[in-house]
């Protein structure tokens, strides 16, 4: 198993992360991240991908690969096109009238830029968690059941089971099992975000997109989400946008650094943080700009 010593490692990393996250990277890499990172099958192929809002080019001819059941982190300064990229993977940009894209974006052989594709089917396979927790103004139960109900019809017991499983997977079950039918708006920010993750995985996606899932949370809630992401790695392909390099270092297998719409560098997280190939990357990861 890849994470034979996961619990101890997690604990350790969490504690030292608070002190000196970058120093931690090397150790993490040595201990946890094997070369299997680059050998996992490709989930998402990106070739010469460019995206526009009207005449403004937000992404400039990006190419790289996202591997199955790995965590891929997208880092870069604000406005460099990370969210735009993420939102093209499950076509959330269809909601933006001026958005348009070119190039290749291919998920397990499906052309994601095909105008005729069924975006509903796509979104079932590619779940998304947003920057600000966005629980629906419904009960906790109905929040989780929302997605499954859209696509399948259930008997009550089946749905109960699915809701429970999803909440367990999101490490929220123990905290909410006694108030499943209370409003989700009563949860704390961190709980709300885990609820949103549970809601996303309840639909049964292969890929989970997370757009700065922790930036609206306090440090403690952030750590819990990070733990959760590490657990989910065994089942889902995760693409996470983060502003926080330490976070990328802590949780990701692969990191891609975006700058002004261009992909500057992508590679194993440990490599990117310890021996960046590009000067801009080095400056960014060492905090000299951005």
């Amino acid at each position, binding site marked *: 198993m890849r994470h034979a010593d996961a*619990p101890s490692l997690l604990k350790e990393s969490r504690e030292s992360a608070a002190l000196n996250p970058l120093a931690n990277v090397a150790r993490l890499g040595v201990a946890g991240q094997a070369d299997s990172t680059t050998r996992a099958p490709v989930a998402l192929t990106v070739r010469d991908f460019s995206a526009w809002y009207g005449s403004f080019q937000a992404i400039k001819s990006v190419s790289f690969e996202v591997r199955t059941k790995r965590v891929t982190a997208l880092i870069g300064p604000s406005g460099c096109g990370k969210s735009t990229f993420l939102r093209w993977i499950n076509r959330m940009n269809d909601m933006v009238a001026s958005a348009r894209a070119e190039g290749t974006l291919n998920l397990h052989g499906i052309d994601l830029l095909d105008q005729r594709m069924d975006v509903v089917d796509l979104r079932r396979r590619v779940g998304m968690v947003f920057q600000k927790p966005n629980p629906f103004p419904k009960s906790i139960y109905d929040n989780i059941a929302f997605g499954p109900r859209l696509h399948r*019809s*259930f008997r009550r017991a089946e749905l109960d*089971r*699915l809701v429970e*499983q999803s909440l367990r*997977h999101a490490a929220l079950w123990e905290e909410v099992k006694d108030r499943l039918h209370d409003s989700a708006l009563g949860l704390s920010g961190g709980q709300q975000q885990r609820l949103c993750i549970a809601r996303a995985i309840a639909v*049964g996606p292969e890929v989970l997109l997370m757009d700065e899932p922790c930036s609206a949370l306090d440090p403690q809630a952030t750590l819990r989400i990070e733990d959760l992401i*590490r657990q989910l790695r*065994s089942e889902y392909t995760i693409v996470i946008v983060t502003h926080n390099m330490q976070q990328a270092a802590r949780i990701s297998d692969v990191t891609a650094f975006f700058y002004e719409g261009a992909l500057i560098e992508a590679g194993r997280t440990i490599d990117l943080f310890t021996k960046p190939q590009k000067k801009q990357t080095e400056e960014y990861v060492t905090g000299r700009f951005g």
Partner: protein
Amino acid sequence: MTTIQAQPGALLPLDHSAGRERSRTLRRFREAFMTAALMACAIFSTLTTFAIIGVLLEETRRFFTMPDVSPGEFFLTATWQPLLGAEKHFGVWPLVCGTMLVTGVSALLALPLGLITAIYLSEYAPRGLRAVLKPVLEILAGIPTVVYGFFALTFITPALLGAGVEVDSYNALSAGLAVGIMTLPIVCSLSEDALQAVPRSLREGAYACGGTRLDVSLRVVVPAALSGIIASFLLAIARAIGETMIVALAAGGLAQLTADPRDQVQTMTGYMVQIFLGDASAAGVEYRSSYAVAFMLFLMTLVVTIVGYRIMRRYREEYQ
């Protein structure tokens, strides 16, 4: 610090095979159907406009092709006598004059009063007073116009007579005042919106220059909100032009060219009420004439409304 039970192996993978898959065809069909239905709803509102224009145009055309009627007479002469006498006269100006007179009186009351109230509400009023004034204005806005008409007829006119103003028992003055009261909340709430849309930074800048509250309100905020205020005036005037029940009750039924608001007048809307209440036969020329009058009324209010919204949109763009 809490530690969560990180037991990756303890959880079974999610079982997504439970339940029955919903039909995709049905989903697509429902989606297309609902889109079409919603589109039909939106199209309906557009059809209303076409119906208004179509019906009024056609009936007006028919009116002008009737004997004894000509557009020349309609627009260029000033005798409106469709019902009485051997010879009928269709010169629309007395009706327009009546409408203008009533609208003018209402504007003199509602515009300044509404604007001052709006300035007070937006810039001065303490919370408590706002809490009284806002509902009062909302109630005034919600009172049916037939009630204002009754008020004009049974209270304002006697009160004017009591105050020594020699008005007819039906007169443009009391109808105009009642229309003014009716449009007051419109002026007030739209102007207040415009004043509130002025950014705080502008006010702070003016205070920083040592302005009093009056200086800030009148020299900075009001000019900055001017287009919104003018829009509110125009929309209120459009309402006044189209107001029907008040003038039907209080302004009288005599179409005459007069500038004295103490006289009895007939407005365009008042004439339409008289016709549709059945004084005229359905096939007659006077019945058709009401469509021509309605068309004119429609065009007048439409122009004023469109100009009003144009101006309003400009001020919205200014501060967004």
